[in-house]
């Protein structure tokens, strides 16, 4: 006669449940760690900006030589990359993510203001790009535009690209949009103070920003210099 041990089914069910819970907790732990990681970068940027502002106020006229980009925070690009990843992984309305994005938007504006101040002081002409996008499905071309900007950011770190989720509930961002009387067409780019709408490819961007050609030359020069250097070193070794 067939026998059944129902207790065994219960034990198996409990163990399975325990494994499931562990997996959920583990996943949650990593998600929290990501948030913590982003927070610490944001805090670092915040301190960087504050420190630069203070330095600027203290000296009023800091010597513009040796200044260049080093006074501006270098972490914004890596923060942008990480936030983009989280935007894809997490649901749109995740409160944690929205908070991080608002903080990020504020830091971007602060960074922009500082950039402006320093460049006025020192006669630098940084290339500033504002990018307005949306992830809520009403901007099919935003994904592609995002790839273009990610590429430009990595290729030419001299570009100061600030991206804003147009849906974000932050008055500073709204003010920024109103300064350039931005329409609701997305994706929208503000390059050198002028607003343009629709998808812009890498080639389009190169046309819109003549400085890119200069950056390209500089980069090529730098690369050939390093490669010559390495060959010379090799020769020396031999």
């Amino acid at each position, binding site marked *: 006669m067939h026998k059944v041990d129902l207790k065994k089914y219960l034990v198996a069910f409990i163990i*399975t449940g325990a494994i499931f819970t562990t997996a959920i907790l583990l996943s*949650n732990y990593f998600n929290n760690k990501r948030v913590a990681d982003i927070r610490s970068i944001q805090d670092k940027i915040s301190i960087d900006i504050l420190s630069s502002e203070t330095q600027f106020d203290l000296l009023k006229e800091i010597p513009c030589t040796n200044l260049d980009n080093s006074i501006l925070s270098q972490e914004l690009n890596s923060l942008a990359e990480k936030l983009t990843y989280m935007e894809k992984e997490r649901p749109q309305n*995740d409160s944690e993510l929205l908070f991080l994005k608002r903080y990020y938007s504020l830091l971007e504006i602060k960074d922009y203001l500082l950039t402006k101040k320093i460049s006025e002081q020192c006669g630098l002409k940084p290339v500033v790009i504002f990018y307005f996008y949306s992830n809520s499905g009403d901007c099919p071309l935003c994904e592609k535009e995002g790839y273009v900007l990610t590429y430009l950011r990595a290729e030419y770190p001299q570009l100061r690209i600030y991206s804003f989720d147009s849906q974000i509930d932050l008055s500073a961002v709204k003010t920024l949009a109103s300064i350039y009387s931005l329409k609701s067409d997305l994706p929208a780019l503000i390059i050198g103070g002028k607003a343009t709408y629709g998808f812009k490819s890498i080639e389009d961007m190169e046309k819109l920003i003549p400085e890119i050609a200069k950056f390209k030359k500089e980069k090529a020069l730098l690369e050939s210099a390093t490669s010559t250097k390495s060959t010379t070193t090799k020769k020396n070794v031999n």
Partner: protein
Amino acid sequence: MFPIMLEVLQTLPGLLMYGMIFLSLFFQVFLLITFLENKDKINKETSEEATSFPRVSITVPCYNEERSVVKTVNSLLALDYPKNKLKVIVVDDGSTDATWEVVQRFKDHPQVDIYHKENGGKHTAVNYGLERTDATFVGCLDADSFVAKDALKSIMKYFRDPEVMAVTPAIKIYNPKSIISKIQNVEYILSIFIRKMLGMMDAIQVTPGPFSIFRKKVFDTLGPYKQAYNTEDMEIAMRMHKHHMKIVNSHTASVYTLGPKTLRNLLKQRVRWIYGFLKNASDYREIFFRRKYGNLGLFTFPAAVISIFTGIYFLCYTIYSLIHLLLKKIVVIQTVGFNFTFNGFSVNWFFLDTQTTVFLVIVLFFVTLTFILLGSYITDQKARFPRGMLYYLPLYGFIAPIWLAKAVYNVALSRKAKWEKVN
């Protein structure tokens, strides 16, 4: 609320995925518990010796098996068992090749009877053999399989328990050389473990054609084999369960089977198996979830049906995800060309996938590896990975759903499965 929960609730496919992973994990945990409960008993069984040697007759049904039948019969004659207690009945089921000529060499052998009949299908050939014996124990050995010397003794010791009505062996792939054979080699070792566990809980759903041994009483009481969608070995096991007859497994009785050598024939064989299982299980559907049929109704049947659909779903999900990923990559390439900024192999943990499903799939994977090791351990007393792991791991998950889907499709359209050629 955990963001992960939101994620799940947002999509039905995601929810279905979690449900299927939960059930798969449940089945694995259940089998592991069964192993832990019975491991001493299994070890004891391994070292036990047969003490009595009753009369056994083995039918070898053959249809166009000229290449392997002699080897099959010779392996039976070489069995370590008293010669006067073992009879081999070769039934040529109307072969159109030289099978009948080839088996003539056994016509004067005192242990072998040879018969020729008109072709009628495997079940008719086995029944033909059953009608021509009065041995207390009967069995069948497909003409594409060979037995190890000690296989019969390893099986007969289980019949000391008067409740045991049938014993199934540990089936292995004979000399796995091709990729397809190697994949099956691993799969069979895994099956050895699973079948043993099912045996420990009286829930074996098939008494395989290669060398399952029955008390003759089973057929005297229940009647002969039926056609049963060309899976007569599943039908008889289900019929036995319906009459509360006990089937156990001998994990040390090694039987080697050739196994299909081409993907095409493997697919045909598996479509026949899965189709046969679904059709037979549907004929015996009263067994499902009925406590009086024990773990067969509560575990084996539901687990088998669910794993068929899980296999199909997992593959669809994987293909869907891969296509999705590919389309994304295409958009990236269209937009920025091949100008990827290559940042070496420095993987930042931040960008690793740490979704709940990833952890669960890792658990499922490692439990499966454990089962394979345990299968190897119980049958060979050595826990080692069998040959073919490198092919099995990446390929099986993609190949198996093809026959699962085809079989389900055939069941839906009531298309009949055909026998395949092994050689």
